[in-house]
């Protein structure tokens, strides 16, 4: 009885406090019921979800050779392991995390059954779940074995090594069969392009930011010019420049494939934005830090490398994560310059004769994939921000 009463009170306070709030609430309910009912009706009776289940592999890894798919799985496993390890190190014990992992496993299992995934992939998914739990547990135990400063030093290097190993696994060479980059499609290509370009643009962006803050007129002018010109152009223009102009300004015998050109375009683009973010971080470092380091007798290179940059980069981690999310979404533009990433593969699926006109299903499905990644990354970044804030 008490609960009913408190629920009623809550509703009175939050939904029906004044006449216009009541009106708004009713309007929202009408809208939700109409929209929700329409969507449910469409999703359960009119939509043909077979377009997704038939093409699931195409959406995720594109035309990556089936015999070599284990490499993708192992690469994913590595990333999952390192991610859960770092999560375990950074996160204080929290029942929520375990619950989230369990929920994610449950949902992916349900999806796998719903989309009629073969048993091999099911086993792989289970293995990923196991890796997550072991990685998280390992991350929780690690601080008792190693001291936190050491951990903080090792984690970024661990990520870097993982990154290189994953690239090697995907591209082949050095003992395993090479896979040409035109066979990298779908979500795989999307993730790869976003990760590669943010990593490659990092050094360039930091250099540009330092150049813009420098008191040397020539270096400052060049940096400002680069940053402002790139930021004034739409990404599609920069990608066009990379696709068309790069072959023109390089010797004719040097042929770059379109994935490399696209990475170059994305890198040039995101370096300008990264530079602005890093500049914000540099400005946030108090002047006293530099002066104190000067008093200690450090030269300007050491001051930058040991005192200013570490603090500046630490301050801009959230902004860089935000930029990564933007870049992840922006990779969809690569479909306009002819790359078959997630949006591009959606277009080719829609041209299959069996699934002509199934726009809504396909676009909703890949929209969900984009949304999940962006939302998860932004959640993780919010957590990271809280941790850094303490």
């Amino acid at each position, binding site marked *: 009885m008490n609960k009913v009463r408190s629920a009623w009170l809550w509703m009175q306070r939050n939904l029906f406090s004044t006449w216009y709030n009541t009106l708004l609430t009713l309007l929202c309910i009408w809208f939700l019921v109409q929209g929700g009912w329409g969507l449910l009706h469409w999703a359960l009776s009119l939509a043909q979800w077979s377009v997704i289940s038939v093409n699931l592999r195409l959406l995720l890894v594109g035309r990556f050779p089936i015999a070599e798919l284990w490499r993708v799985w192992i690469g994913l496993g590595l990333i999952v392991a390192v991610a859960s390890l770092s999560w375990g190190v950074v996160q204080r014990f929290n029942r929520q995390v375990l619950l989230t992992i369990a929920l994610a496993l449950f949902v992916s299992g349900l999806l796998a059954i719903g989309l009629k995934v073969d048993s091999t992939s099911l086993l792989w998914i289970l293995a990923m779940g196991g890796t997550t739990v072991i990685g998280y547990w390992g991350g929780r135990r690690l601080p008792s074995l190693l001291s936190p400063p050491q951990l903080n030093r090792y984690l970024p290097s661990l990520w870097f090594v993982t990154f290189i190993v994953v690239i090697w696994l995907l591209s082949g060479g050095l003992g395993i069969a090479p896979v040409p980059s035109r066979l990298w499609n779908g979500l795989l290509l999307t993730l790869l392009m976003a990760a590669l370009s943010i990593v490659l643009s990092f050094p360039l962006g930091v250099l540009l930011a330092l150049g813009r803050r420098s008191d040397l007129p020539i270096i400052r002018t060049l940096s400002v010019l680069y940053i402002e010109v790139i930021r004034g152009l739409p990404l599609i223009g920069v990608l066009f420049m990379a696709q068309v102009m790069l072959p023109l300004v*390089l010797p004719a015998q040097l042929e770059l494939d379109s994935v490399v050109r696209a990475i170059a375009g994305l890198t040039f683009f995101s370096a300008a934005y990264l530079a602005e973010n890093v500049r914000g971080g540099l400005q946030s470092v108090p002047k006293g830090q530099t002066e104190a380091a000067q008093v200690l007798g450090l030269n300007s290179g050491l001051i930058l490398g040991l005192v200013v940059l570490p603090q500046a980069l630490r301050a801009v981690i959230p902004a860089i994560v935000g930029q990564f999310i933007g870049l992840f979404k922006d990779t969809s533009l690569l479909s306009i310059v002819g790359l078959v990433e997630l949006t591009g593969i959606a277009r080719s699926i829609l041209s299959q004769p069996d699934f002509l006109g199934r726009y809504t299903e396909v676009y909703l499905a890949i929209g969900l994939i984009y949304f999940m990644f962006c939302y998860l990354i932004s959640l993780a970044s919010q957590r990271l921000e809280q941790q850094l804030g303490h």
Partner: protein
Amino acid sequence: MVTEYMDLKSHNRRLSPRLWRLGGQAIVLLLVGYIALYCGLNLTINLQRLNLPFGFDFLKTQAGFGIGEAPIPYRPTDLYARALWVGLLNSLRVMGVGLVLTTIIGIAVGIARLSTNWLVRHLALMYVEILRNTPLLLQLLFWYFAVFLALPKVEKQIQWPGSIFLNNQGIQIPWLQATPAIRVWGGCLVLGCGLAILLWKRQTLYLLEQGNPSHLKTWPLGAITCSILIASLWTQQLPAMLSTPKLIAGQVTGGLSLSSEFATLLVGLTLYTAAFIAEIVRAGITSVNRGQREAAQALGLKPRTTMRLVIFPQALRVIVPPLTSQYLNLAKNSSLAIAIGYPDIYAVASTTFNQTGRAVEVLLLLMATYLTISLLISLLMNLYNRSIQLVER
């Protein structure tokens, strides 16, 4: 002795950084120059190989391609220059309307995010999260293929109240249509307003001299009323008529017809940018000190008046700088029009490149266009920003 040594040392210290500075800059300059030279040399060789001498003469040749919608008359026999001009006008059209609409929706959603109504607050949150976390290109494709092209044919079109028609050819809405009298009306109004400003200045001067506040607004308002009266008596006509779309023999005539492509681009860009603006507005409003609201309430101001006169002007100072960058994003993102076939400047330039192969010239034109637009928007917004900043005395 000691001081001399110190002087010498500090002198050395001062000298070597200066050498470093000059040397470092020279090295960077040399490096950049070398890269530029290397690229330029390759470019000349490659362009010679492709037999494409540099120059903008191609703009004066016949374009030979049609453009789906043009605000000024355009035929495929027109020149490339005119085709690009049409593209630029199309871009500006979508940017202009988009900026206004996205500001309105963004502010509304931003305020809804802070509503006391739980349902409204969470619906706004849902809107922001979904729109912000999916790519704009995907949203545009969705709007185009799954919504606007999936609308029923003209015969079975959806009719919304207020004569708004939705069909697979686009949207038709009522619009004002100018009558021949518009010139007379325009002339009279310009004269009237000019007179009103003069009178208002004179009255203000009068007020300062005499200290008599009466009739400050009467004379200027009278001037404007007179001009309206003269115009209506002269022309016996309204300056513009409301034209509503009508379905006659399977075709919609009258009103303003927005093509599916334009409508898609407008809706997609507007809603996407509004989600970002909503977050900026929310952050701006929450940044205003609580005490301000409480003080306004204590003075007896209503919530709406508090918002309009106390909270919003202060929030605006926080809102405008990030808002500028969202405006710039909208302008730049309008280039995604090419994905849905709306002939904006980028799409027309791209067609031009495909037909002529003039990569460098087309790229330079595009860069100049977008940089000019970006510069103009940031200039205007910076001026506005300066006008609303707190004036420190």
